[in-house]
Structure formats: C-alpha cells, structure tokens
C-alpha cells in the first residue's frame, strides 16, 4: 500500500486533501463555533463572530429547557430499543441462514432486502391509520416497532455476512468435543461473533438516531426524538442561531463520535456486502 513518493508530492497531496476535507467539514465546524457565541453575536459577519467572546450560555439555555432533555431521552430509548429488539429477532434468523443454509436461503435474504426498498410514503397512510387505532401515535414503543422493522433487513444482512465468515469447521470441532448447542453458542460462537454484533449495533443505532421520516410524521411533543425537536426550529419564531447551533451540536455529537468508529462497517452494512 505504501507507495514511495517524493516528499514534495506528499506535501502537495496533504495540502489538497486537507483543504477539501476542511471545506466539507466547515458547516459542522461553523455551528460548533456559533454554539459558543451569544445570540446577538451569532448573526454578525463571520469575522465579527470569531472575535466575539466565547460563552456557554446557549448550552445552558438549551439544556435548561425540559423539552430538550425529553427529546434526547426519546432518541436514546428509540434508537437503542429498536436496535436491541431487532437483534433479538435477527440473531436467530441470521444464525440459521448462515449455519444451516437451505436451497431457499438466498431467496429469503433477497426478499428481506426487498422489503427495505419499500418507499415510506407509499405506506404512510396505512401505518398512520394503524397507529391511530392501536393508540401508538406519539408513543416511543410505536416508533421502536417501526424503526425496528425498517432496519431489520440491514441487521439480518450484516449479521449474516459476519456469521458466514466464522468457519464451520470450528463449530464441528466443538461438537466433536462433546459441546452441546448451548456451549456451542455461548463459548464458541458468541466470542467470535462479538465484533460483528458490535458493529451491527453501532450502525443501526446511527441509522435509527438519524431517521427523519417516521420520526417526524408519527410523533408530536411526547415521543418526538431529536430529529423532531430540531425540525421544530424551522418555524421563524424559533430562529435563534446560537441556541439552534447548541441544540444541533448536542444532537449530532454522539453520532459523529460513533460514526467515526464505524467507517468500515458502514460500507459493509449499507451496500449489503456488495462492496468490501
């Protein structure tokens, strides 16, 4: 991989790449800066913004608002809940398809993937109706269910590709040594599958955290996660740059950190193993 290049060439590469990287990152950097400025300073020209004193007041105001904390909790509960519930359903299914494949395994996998392609807007009203009649509208459990179903195909696919990389001979060897199904799963399979499980959880928490169709349409004040909370700032009377920036930074920071850890898994998870 490490190709030999002249130091001059390397310096030029570095300069070009960093310039582009900083341009692409700049909008995020800018709201980060704005979030530490006062409301009056945040609407000034860029140079005046940079010269203005730094302050934590926006964070204090946003955190002090009870609704921010509520929405943050909703985001955590909904993204973790839907991912864990999805794992509960997906692990056995992916395990069965990876280790006891049948002639129909491929068709089943492809069909599962196809349910992911269903455009949300095509089934919006039926889901809306069902939510009303089941009293699920604006509840966390309703969103957990919908996001679990949306991401289930991705969870199963990711787990399947990870499980398939576990050599079957190891399981057979364990079986020969007299390990029962329980020992096999607990002591052989789980340790080997753990990295794959972790990346699956990571990517799906990210996807659920950022989902912005059902979370906007099926919630109101009570169960709305951060996506809905941020969207409520789109009305003109809620237009406060510094506070909006602070709320945004708090909404995206945990996911940015998680996302940086999951770069590799992102490719596998979102291309369904088609690009490795």
């Amino acid at each position, binding site marked *: *991989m490490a190709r030999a290049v002249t130091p001059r060439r390397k310096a030029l*590469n*570095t300069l070009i*790449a*960093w310039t582009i*990287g*900083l341009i*692409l*990152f700049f*909008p*995020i950097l*800018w*709201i980060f800066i704005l979030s530490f400025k006062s409301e009056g300073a945040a*609407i000034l*020209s*860029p140079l005046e913004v940079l010269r203005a004193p730094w302050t934590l007041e926006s964070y204090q105001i946003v955190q002090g608002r009870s609704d921010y904390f509520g929405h943050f909790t909703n985001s955590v509960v909904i993204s973790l809940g839907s991912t864990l519930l999805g794992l509960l*359903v997906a692990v*056995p*299914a992916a395990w*069965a398809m990876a280790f*006891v494949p*049948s002639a129909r395994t*491929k068709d*089943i*996998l*492809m069909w599962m*993937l196809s*349910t992911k*392609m*269903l*455009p949300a*807007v*095509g*089934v*919006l*009203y*039926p889901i*809306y109706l*069902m939510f009303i009649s089941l009293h699920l509208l604006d509840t966390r459990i309703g969103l957990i269910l919908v996001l679990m*179903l949306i991401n*289930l*195909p991705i969870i199963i696919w990711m787990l399947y590709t990870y499980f398939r990389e576990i050599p079957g001979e190891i399981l057979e060897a364990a079986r020969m040594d007299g390990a029962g199904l329980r020992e096999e799963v607990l002591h052989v399979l789980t340790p080997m599958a753990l990295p794959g499980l972790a990346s699956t959880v990571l990517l799906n928490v*990210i996807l659920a955290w*950022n989902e912005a*169709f059902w979370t*906007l*349409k099926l919630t109101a004040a009570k169960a709305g996660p951060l996506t809905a909370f*941020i969207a409520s700032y*789109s009305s003109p009377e809620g237009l406060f*740059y510094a506070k*909006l*920036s602070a709320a*945004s930074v708090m909404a*995206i920071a945990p996911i940015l950190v998680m*996302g*940086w850890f999951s770069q590799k898994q*992102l*490719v596998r998870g979102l291309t*369904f193993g088609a*690009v490795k």
Partner: protein
Amino acid sequence: MATQHSRSAARLMMAPAVTLLLGWMLVPLVMTLYFSFRKYLPLRPEIAQDWVGFDNYIRFVTSDAFWPAVQVTLIIVGGVLAITLILGVGLALILDQPMWGQGAVRVLVIAPFFVMPTVSALLWKNMFMDPVNGFFAHVLRALGLAPIEFLSQHSLGSIITIVSWEWLPFATLILLTAIQSLDQEQLEAAEMDGARWPSRFVHIILPHLGRAMTVVLLIQTIFLLGIFAEIFVTTQGSFGSKTLTYLIYQRVLESQNVGLGSAGGVYAIILANIVAMFLMRIVGKNLDA
C-alpha cells in the same frame, strides 16, 4: 451436514423475522392498494366511499402538479447523483494518495453523513443560505454583491447542494474502499509499460470502480427518491421544489385525499421496485461468490 433436526430448528429460528417482515410488507401494501381504488376523504365523511376503479391513478398523473413533481424529482436525483459520483471518484482518488494525517482527513470528509437530515437542512437554510444573516450573505455583502435568496430563487440548486453534501461522504467512502482493493502491481506494471495517468485511469481504475459506482448509484437513487426532511424543513415544497414523495405526502396527510395519495404511493412503490431490481441483481451475484 445439516440434519433434519437442525433444519426444523433453523426454520423455527427464522420464523419471527420472516413473519414480522411479511406482515410489515403485506398489510400496509394491501391497505394502500385498497385505498387507491376508492374515493376516500376521511375529513369529509359526507362524501361516500366508493369504488372508483383506476380513477385515482388517472387523476394522479393528469393533475397539474404531477409533471412538475416528476421533473423536480428527476432534477434533484440526477443532480445529486452526478455531483456525488463525479466528486466522489475524484475525492476517493485524492484520499488514496500517500499523505500526512490521512485518517484525520477521512474523518473530516465522512462527518456530514452522520449529521441527522433535519440538522443539515436547518444549518444550511439558516446559518448559510439565509439572505440576511447567513454566512453566504455576509460574504457576498463583504464583496460588494447583493445577497441571494437561495431557497426561494434557486430552490432546486440549494436543495441539491444540501443533499449532495449529505451523500458525498457515502459515495467517497464506498469508492475509496473499492480503490483500495485495486491490485497495485497491475497499476505499476501499466506505469512501467509507459501508460500515462489518464490512460491508467480510463483503462484500469474506472473499470475496477464500475461495480462500486453502480452500487452507489442504485442505493443513492432509492434513498434520494424518498428524501423528505430536507424539503419539509427548507421550502415545504414551495418555490418549485415539490418532489413526487412530497406531493404524495401532501395529498395523503395535508389534504387528506387518501385515495388519490395512495394511487401516488403505488406509483412510488413501482418506481422504487424497478430501481431495486437492478440493485438486487448485483447483490445477488455477490452472494453466490
């Protein structure tokens, strides 16, 4: 070898997932189909629900809003695809070069993909594109130019910019992964044979990237056909930025014309399935390998 016993166990283990997904797919789909053949306005109960045959389907495509929405959808999807694929290949090539701080640059480039859509839309709309206090307005004024009302005067260009910013990292990341799997010896051999950079790019790198580019194209198309938050937060579909998805959403939830909206939904499902078919073929081929 799988025994009969383990086969039935496997079937049992798959049952919950299969049942849930089958229900999630079929129940809403059948309901949407059912509504699409009826006159159904829940807010106006005095209008009787009737079977209307293909009336909703015909009315949806003959309404004044339909063709503009198709055009807007094609412009946004096509524009974002062109920008992210071209810039994505370029950026992936740059990031593949030896440099200092490669990991850190990758982190900077990928970051926008992890920003939730409502945040990206709002941050562009207010902090950058706002004609009075936005970053661009300040810069334009400093240069002695008049500020531009991006979202009302150039709504499509602005939305394409926002969505491209969100999806460029995805394209770059996947194309970079593909470039890194390229056989370096092959490239070096070509270089020694005297192949210049443009011909190496056209004859070795581009063909190698073909499949990754197709995958990016198909996956992005499926997601881009359904973009919602970016329009909901910025223009709400005004200033000529109403996509098919947004039009259907307005018919169903805003004007509560469920029959008409459902017919639109069925069109959206058919469209997504055509794209999905191509994607599945590629994914399926990979499954055999």
